[in-house]
């Protein structure tokens, strides 16, 4: 089912010579194609980032308020609903956010990086994934008190 696009979409600045039908766009544009569904899911992952930001701000507020508030915040984070939310957030942000960012990163590469020729594009996704895994592991080890 098609729905009206913006009435001025692709409208010329000069007056159109004849009566035209208004531009239409697919009303269910995100459902028929797996590509579009992935795009919408990527956009939706922003909701999780927004919610995570709220949690982060609440944590900062608790930290500034005092030890009692901070401990209450930590206790809240142990609630099963919070744990489910964080696991879900991690999955959504990694699968849609990070994966899309990795693809986007490849697209932004110029033909030359400074005076150096650009490495082949296929190098970037595994390099990014490797760097991400390394940083994640390092953060987990540091926060877990295992390293250094």
């Amino acid at each position, binding site marked *: 089912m098609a729905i009206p696009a913006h009435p001025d*979409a692709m409208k010329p600045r000069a007056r159109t010579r004849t009566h035209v039908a208004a531009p239409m766009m697919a009303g269910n544009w995100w459902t028929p194609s797996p*590509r579009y569904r992935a795009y919408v899911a990527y956009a939706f992952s922003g909701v999780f980032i927004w919610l995570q930001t709220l949690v982060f701000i609440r944590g900062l507020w608790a930290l500034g308020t005092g030890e009692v508030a901070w401990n209450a915040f930590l206790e809240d984070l142990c609630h099963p609903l919070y744990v489910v939310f964080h696991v879900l957030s991690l999955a959504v942000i990694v699968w849609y956010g990070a994966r899309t960012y990795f693809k986007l990163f490849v697209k932004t590469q110029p033909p030359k990086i400074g005076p150096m020729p650009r490495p082949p594009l296929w190098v970037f996704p595994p390099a990014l994934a490797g760097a991400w895994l390394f940083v994640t592991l390092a953060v987990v080890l540091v926060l877990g008190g295992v390293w250094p």
Partner: protein
Amino acid sequence: MDAPEKKTFVVTRFDPDRDELPKTQEYEVPVQPDWKVLDALNWIKDEIDPSLSHRWSCRMAVCGSCGMNVDGEPKLTCKTALSDYGDKVTVEPLSNFPVIRDLVVEMDGFMERFQAVKPWIIRAKELAVEEGATRQSPEELSHFKQFSMCINCMLCYAACPVVGKEPGFLGPAAIALAHRYNLDTRDQGQAERLAALREGELYNCSYANECSEVCPKNVDPSGAIQQSKLLSTIDWVQGLVLPRTGK
């Protein structure tokens, strides 16, 4: 020769002199196994309904005239095999464009966007003829050649969800063309072209990547847009701290 298979075509019709809104009309067409969508449209026009209007020219995916939505997806109809579709095929004008008649869309807005990005070589100072040609190596050519392969078929505009919602957005093909000149070593107009891109709401692209998916020439306009965003950001920051020096 195989017996023709019958397919039903649901085609958008719009007569600007009579209709307020587009409507659809169904045609039953005996299609040959090797037919493209354009063959069926031409058969309808020749054998059933001469009033049907659609654009086409080269029939070999070069001229870019015959872009339409086939079962909801922007396609060059001369390149789209009917064997890939079911018994009922929907053919509509390209999404996001005003419709002049039937399957023919208004192209003037598209052409204006091309002009806006100054798609020509800009030199700070023209070279005298006796100074010879500005030379370019094959490697330098390879940096932008991909972006010069656009055939202006407008499929990328029909596929882009931002074009349909943001009338100020320059759109994929115009930005890819701007990027083609920005990467050209003979050109010195990058700064003014990037200013035109910013004015054309470059950053409204939300990376659906559909423009590159539907492009029949693998131009990758989405790549051009993302690279232009990066160039534009660097240019903007440089403009804050350094005096302008041409390119």
